[in-house]
């Protein structure tokens, strides 16, 4: 019931995630299941290295109930990222009088119900400081510094207590949430409306919002590659343009400003991912990592000539479209 409610609220496409996971599993048969999940999470733009993800998975694996597996935890980590995006969008659009109001409002609207749901994954013996640590990890902004699990646990242990009265654990989840999420919400609150707000129309005083992170959808790219692998038919330029357009438009929105550094990694990873998943087994002559490296080189070249690091969504689509189109055309040529 709880899961149904959450899927409705913050839907994650488990089927697609499963197939992504299986693809990674098939490509990395030499790795153990934890390493595969870490790699899978890394490709989902979790924002920290696979080693750090592995360390976190190792710690929390022991704390899962017997009905839940590490992959369930990984899916929730992905869902948490989605919730963070929704929360960030909300908090930047709202005008709060005080930081505490932003904190209380965000916890009430986004994290309180999810906390109840997330707790079902873990054993009842999981301490409150472990929960607050977990929130700091799974709701961690992608651009943040690396995560030191031991340090985080120690820090939280000193601040967040588990209270047991007459052998019964007392509900103190609001304080756990406040402690676990306060730094993140404070930073987002202080960030507020970006300093470089653009006034488009001086009469209308139209204010443009900052970019809201979301995923690239490259299903047309994937289909196009697959189609080529099966039919070996020449692909029309228009079809390439359409696929690239769909890929870029799924991420960039008209009128919204985007910072290049904030999306380039995601762009490379998603584009390579969709190309790779379109390839049939006989065409998978190179690894996804080497494909990413090739794409990285092209993007770095593009970055060198970049005059403005921050542009509107439509401008990015126009600028990046020929780069990606050229890349995919050449890629197919060499298949």
């Amino acid at each position, binding site marked *: 019931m709880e899961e149904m409610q959450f899927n409705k609220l913050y839907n994650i496409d488990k089927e697609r995630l499963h197939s992504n996971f299986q693809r990674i599993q098939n490509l990395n048969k030499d790795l153990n299941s934890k390493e595969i999940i870490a790699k899978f999470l890394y490709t989902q733009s979790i924002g920290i290295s696979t080693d750090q993800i592995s360390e976190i998975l190792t710690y929390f694996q022991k704390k899962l109930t017997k009905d839940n597996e590490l992959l369930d935890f990984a899916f929730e980590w992905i869902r948490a990222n989605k919730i963070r995006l929704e929360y960030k969008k909300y908090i930047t659009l709202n005008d709060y009088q005080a930081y505490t*109001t932003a904190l209380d409002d965000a916890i009430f609207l986004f994290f309180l119900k999810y906390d109840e749901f997330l707790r079902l994954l873990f054993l009842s013996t999981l301490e409150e400081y472990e929960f607050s640590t977990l929130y700091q990890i799974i709701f961690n902004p992608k651009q943040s510094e690396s995560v030191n699990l031991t340090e985080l646990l120690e820090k939280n242990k000193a601040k967040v207590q588990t209270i047991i*009265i007459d052998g019964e654990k007392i509900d103190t989840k609001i304080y756990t949430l406040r402690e676990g999420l306060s730094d993140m919400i404070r930073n987002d609150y202080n960030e507020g409306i970006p300093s470089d707000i653009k006034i488009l129309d001086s009469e209308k005083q139209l204010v443009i919002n900052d970019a809201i992170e979301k995923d690239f959808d490259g299903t047309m790219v994937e289909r196009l590659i697959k189609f080529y692998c099966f039919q070996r038919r020449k692909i029309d330029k228009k079809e390439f343009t359409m696929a690239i357009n769909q890929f870029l438009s799924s991420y960039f929105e008209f009128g919204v400003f985007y910072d290049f550094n904030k999306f380039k990694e995601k762009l490379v990873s998603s584009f390579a991912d969709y190309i790779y998943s379109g390839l049939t087994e006989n065409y998978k002559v190179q690894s996804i990592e080497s494909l990413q490296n090739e794409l990285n080189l092209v993007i770095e070249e593009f970055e060198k000539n970049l005059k403005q690091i921050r542009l509107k969504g439509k401008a990015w689509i126009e600028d990046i479209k020929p780069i990606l189109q050229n890349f995919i055309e050449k890629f197919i040529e060499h298949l």
Partner: protein
Amino acid sequence: MLRKGSEFLLGLFFSDEQTIIYDHIKLSYDLPKETVRELKSMSFKFLGPLFMTRSLNNQSQWKIEYIETSLTPQSRTKVDETLMQSFTCLNTLKKTAGYITSLFTFIGSPYTEDIKIIYEKLDKYIHPSIIQGKLIAQTNYDVNFNLDLFIEDELKRGADLIEHTLGSPRKIYWEEKMAYSTVGIIKRTKKDGLLESDLYTFDLDDPLRKEALDHIPSYYFMGILPDYYEKRMNETLSLFGKDGLYSNIIKIKVSSQNRVVIYMEELVTDADGKTSLGLILIPDNEKVKESRDLFFYKKKLLSMLNKNSDFERSVIELNSRINPFENWNLNSDESFQNIERSLDNKLL
């Protein structure tokens, strides 16, 4: 968020098992200091019936969740969308470690507020945060911990959180589309300053009278609610310097575990005064089943208030078992004692 310059008042009260009451009041305008001092007694008047519900004979833990009213200005010359037009009271009761705490708020605002979201903020966030914080501090045996300051701080945060919600668009919730049945009708008239209230319900020998008692706190309690709270709200408005505004009950929600009672009211005013009609509604069950939603009842009440409407006929249309010819007076202690002895008596 409320529009800039909007008029509002917001009071948040917390009471613990020793009936110590903490409060935090926010206003969009200034009040004289002596008035603020008087406000302290206001919470006792509001919370009084809440404690009364706990002492009901049937042992059930009934609570008033909310009372929603609209505001009528004495003179209609000034029309301004930033002026207060609704007044709402919300209350949550919680039993923790054997004792009961209450968190209560009243809100005056220019909008019809989304009561459900405000209630959830009180019930799921503000109230638990006070209880949880108190437990953490008590367990730590922190000598520097000041309970009064802590609760006052939490109430301030809570009031800020509620204020931030004010002015949000109101949604339609499934509760409003649920099927309800009428178990009582209250007719209230105010002419030349005199208030006359009557309750119409099942006959004493009708088994539905006893059946309904399993779904409502009591006929006595439902009968006293509208007059009592309308009076309290008018006093509060006057205390807040809003003498020119009068409250009119729109809806009251009372609940106990899985049981819910809705009292909804509509009114007409004329040169002599006003006439209100209210329905006591319970969700459909096997024995009392009319299957109509709250929108139907609202329309029905409005049609019943039409001068040409036949009251008796409309009552029978609402629930054919309710007797429209026998009224239970709600104007004196004696009449309420009579209700308690007869209507509320399951042995009769």
